[in-house]
C-alpha cells in the first residue's frame, strides 16, 4: 500500500503523483521503475520513477491514461492508497561518461527524463532535452526539465510551441550542427524515452552518425523480477529480460518489429476491457 501525497493534472490524460514509498525512494536510481497494481484482481503495470526524494521518502510517478489500469490510477486522488507498489526495478542506464547527452522524450517520456537529466547534469555532463507533443498544452514538465538540463528544446506537431515538427527533426538538426549557434553542440549520446515508434525513429536518426543511443523499452510485464520472461526483447540476436537487464538497451540493436508486435499481443482484449469501463472513463479516453 502506498499513500498518494499529492496529485497534479499535467494534461487531461496525464497525471503526476507524489507517492509515499520510503524504501523505494531510498534505493531508487535514475531510470528505474516500479510495478503497481490498483485493485484486487488488478493487473501489474510498470511505471517509470520520474523522480525521488530520499529524505522525504517519496517517489514521483507520471501516469498516462491508456488502458484500464492507468485510468483507474489516474482517477485516484491525494490521500488515496495505491494497492501495491514494488521496486525499484531495472537498472540505471549505462551512459559512457564525458560528452553531450541528448535526452529525447515523447509524451510521458518527458517525465522519465527528469531525474536522469538531473543526475547527468550533476555529474557534470553536458545535457539537452528534446521533448515533443501534439500541441503546446500537452507538453509536460517543461519548467522542471529546463531547470535540470543545459538546454530544453520543444517540438509540437502544430507549432504552438518550439519547433513545428517531430522530436527527431530537432535531433537531426542538432546532429547537423544547427544548434551550435545557440551553444548546443551535436549529441555524443542519445537517450530515447517514449512511444515505441518515436524510439525507433530516434534510433534510425542516430544510426548513420553512429551516435551511442539507448532506448527505454517498455514491454508487457508481470513480476518485474525475471520470473516470467514475458518482458523479453531481442537485442542484437540476444534475448534479454527488460525488467532485470533493462529497461535501457542499445537502440541500434533492439528488434523494434518484435517489440511492437509483442506489445500488441492483447490489444483486442484490452480494448474490450476498456469498453466495459464506466462511461466517464470513456470520455477521458477520447481525449487522448
Amino acid at each position, binding site marked *: 500500500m502506498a499513500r498518494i501525497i499529492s496529485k497534479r493534472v499535467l494534461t487531461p490524460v496525464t497525471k503526476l503523483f507524489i507517492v509515499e514509498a520510503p524504501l523505494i525512494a531510498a534505493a531508487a536510481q535514475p531510470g528505474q521503475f516500479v510495478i503497481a*497494481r490498483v485493485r484486487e484482481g488488478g493487473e*501489474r503495470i510498470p511505471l517509470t520513477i520520474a523522480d525521488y526524494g530520499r529524505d522525504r521518502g517519496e517517489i514521483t510517478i507520471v501516469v498516462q491514461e491508456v488502458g484500464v489500469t492507468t485510468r483507474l490510477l489516474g482517477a485516484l486522488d491525494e490521500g488515496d492508497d495505491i494497492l501495491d507498489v514494488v521496486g525499484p526495478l531495472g537498472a540505471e542506464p549505462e551512459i559512457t561518461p564525458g560528452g553531450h547527452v541528448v535526452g529525447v522524450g515523447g509524451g510521458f517520456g518527458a517525465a522519465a527524463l527528469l531525474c536522469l537529466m538531473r543526475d547527468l547534469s550533476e555529474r557534470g555532463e553536458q545535457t539537452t532535452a528534446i521533448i515533443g507533443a501534439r500541441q503546446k498544452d500537452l507538453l509536460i514538465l517543461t519548467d522542471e526539465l529546463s531547470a535540470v538540463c543545459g538546454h530544453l528544446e520543444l517540438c509540437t506537431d502544430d507549432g504552438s510551441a518550439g519547433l513545428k515538427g517531430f522530436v527527431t527533426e530537432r535531433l537531426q538538426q542538432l546532429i547537423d550542427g544547427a544548434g551550435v549557434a545557440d551553444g548546443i553542440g551535436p549529441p555524443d549520446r542519445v537517450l530515447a524515452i517514449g512511444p515505441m515508434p518515436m524510439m525507433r525513429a530516434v534510433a534510425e536518426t542516430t544510426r548513420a552518425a553512429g551516435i551511442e543511443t539507448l532506448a527505454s523499452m517498455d514491454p508487457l510485464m508481470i513480476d518485474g*523480477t525475471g520470473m*516470467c520472461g514475458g518482458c523479453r526483447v531481442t537485442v542484437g540476436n540476444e534475448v534479454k529480460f527488460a525488467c532485470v537487464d533493462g529497461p535501457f538497451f542499445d537502440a541500434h540493436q533492439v528488434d523494434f518489429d518484435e517489440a511492437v508486435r*509483442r506489445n500488441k499481443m492483447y490489444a483486442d482484449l484490452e480494448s474490450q476491457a476498456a469498453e466495459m469501463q464506466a462511461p466517464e472513463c470513456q470520455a477521458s479516453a477520447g481525449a487522448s
Partner: protein
Amino acid sequence: MPVKRIDKTPMPQRDAGVRAHDFLEVNEGYDLQRAMFEAERCLRCQDAVCVDGCPVRIPIPEFIHAIAAGDMTEASSILRGANPLPAICGRVCPQESQCELLCHMNNRFTSAAIGHLERFVADWERDQPNNEGARQPWRDEKIAVIGSGPAGLVCAGQMVGMGYPVTVYEALHAPGGVLRYGIPEFRLPNDVLDWEIDVLKRRGVEIVTNVIVGKTIALDDLLNNMGFAAVFIGTGAGLPKFLGIPGENLNGVFSANEFLTRINLMRAYDFPNADTPMKVGKRVAVIGAGNTAMDTVRSALRMGAEKGLIVYRRSETEMTARIEEHHHAIEEGVEFHWLTNPLEVLGNNEGWVTGLKCQVMELGEPDDSGRARPVPVAGTEFVIPVDNVVLSIGTTPNPLLLKSTTGLETDRWGCLVADEESGRTTRAKIYAGGDVVTGAATVILAAGAGKNAAEAIHRDLAEARGEESPAAIAVVGAPSAP
C-alpha cells in the same frame, strides 16, 4: 487389527469431462468413513520404513492409527508436529516416490494411501474452530526470511514457535511462492493456501509483500541496519529456461511461469472481471513433462483449448510429474507426444504461432542424469499445428538477490551453496534452503529445509547467547510459551 484389502480406498474425484473446464479442485477428499476404512489397511509395522521415505519424517503409522481409532485431534497433532504444511503436502507430494514407495504393503498389495490420509487430517483440522491467538515473541533476536514459498513459510513458522520475532519479505503482492503463482487451484485451492498462511500469521509471523530483497532492501541492510540477527533465504528457483530455438519470441509463446502466473496469481481465467488478459488458442503444445508441464497443459484445457499436447524429447519412463497428475491429464484428454524434440516454433505473417516443428528421437546410452539420452532420428522432421507453445523445461535460481549480495557462493548451476543439514551458507548469519539451494525440487524438500535451517539458526543464536545446551527445540504448534 489391520484389515486386508488389496487396493487403496479410491479418492473421490470430479468427472473428467466436467472438471477439465473449470478450476475447481479435482480430488474431493475422503470423508471420515473412507479415511477410517483406509486407515485400517495400515499394517502398523515395527520398522515403519515409510517414515524413512518422508523428508520430514512424519510418524506415519502413529497418525494413521489415530485415524483408525477415530481420534482426529490426536492424528492432527501428530501430523502438524512434524509437517507444518500438511494440507498442502497431502495434495502435492510425490508420495509414490517417497513414503508410499517404501510402504511394506507394496510387497503384496498397494501401499497405504498416506497422502490421501494426510490431506484428510489436515482438512479436518481446517474445519475446526481455531482461537489460537498470536503469542508475544519471548526472544530478542529478530529473524528475516526472504521469500514466502514453502521453505520460507516453514522456516518462519518454526522460528515464531521458538519465540523469535519473524518478518517474511516477499517480492510479489501475495505470499506463497510457487504454491500461489505456479500450482493451479484445481490441485491446490487458494483457500487451502490462505488458511495455512493464516495459521502462521495468527502465530505471529509478519509477512511484508512487495519487497524485493536485493532491490528494495539490500540483504546486508537487514543485518547491519535493520537489526536482524539472522536471515533465511528461500527465494526458490524462479528463473525460466528457454530452448533458444527459432520462433521463441513469437506471439503466443510463453514460459510456463508466465502462463501459470497469468492464470493463478493474476486470475486471467476471470478476465475481464480480473484485469490481466490471457490468450489461449485451440491447440496448445507444452514442452516438458514435469509437474509444471502437467499443470500448464491442464490449465490450457480449462482456459478453453480444445487440444492440449505434451511434447517431450524423452519417453514416458523419464517423465518427472507426479503419477496422479499424469493419470488425471490422460483422463482429461491430454495428448502425449513422447520422444519428440521441438526444433522451431513456426508463425504467420502477423507473428503469431501456427505450428511446432519437431523431430522424432530414440533412446540411447544413459547421460549425466543417469537417464537414457534421447538422440535424433534422421529424416523424421514433422510439424504439429498449434496456436500456443509453452516452455516448461525447467527453472534455475533467480540471480537477482545472489548477484547483489557479496560473499555468497553459487555452484555452476547458479544454486546457492548451503549445508544440507543446517542451511548455513558461506556467510555467517545467512542461511538458505529450498529450490534456491537444490534447484527446482519439491514442496516437502523445501519445507524440510526451512525446518532444518530454523533449528540451526536457533542453535547458533543460543550459542551466541552463551547458552550451554540450547533449550529443547520447540515445534510449531507446541501448546504454550515457557
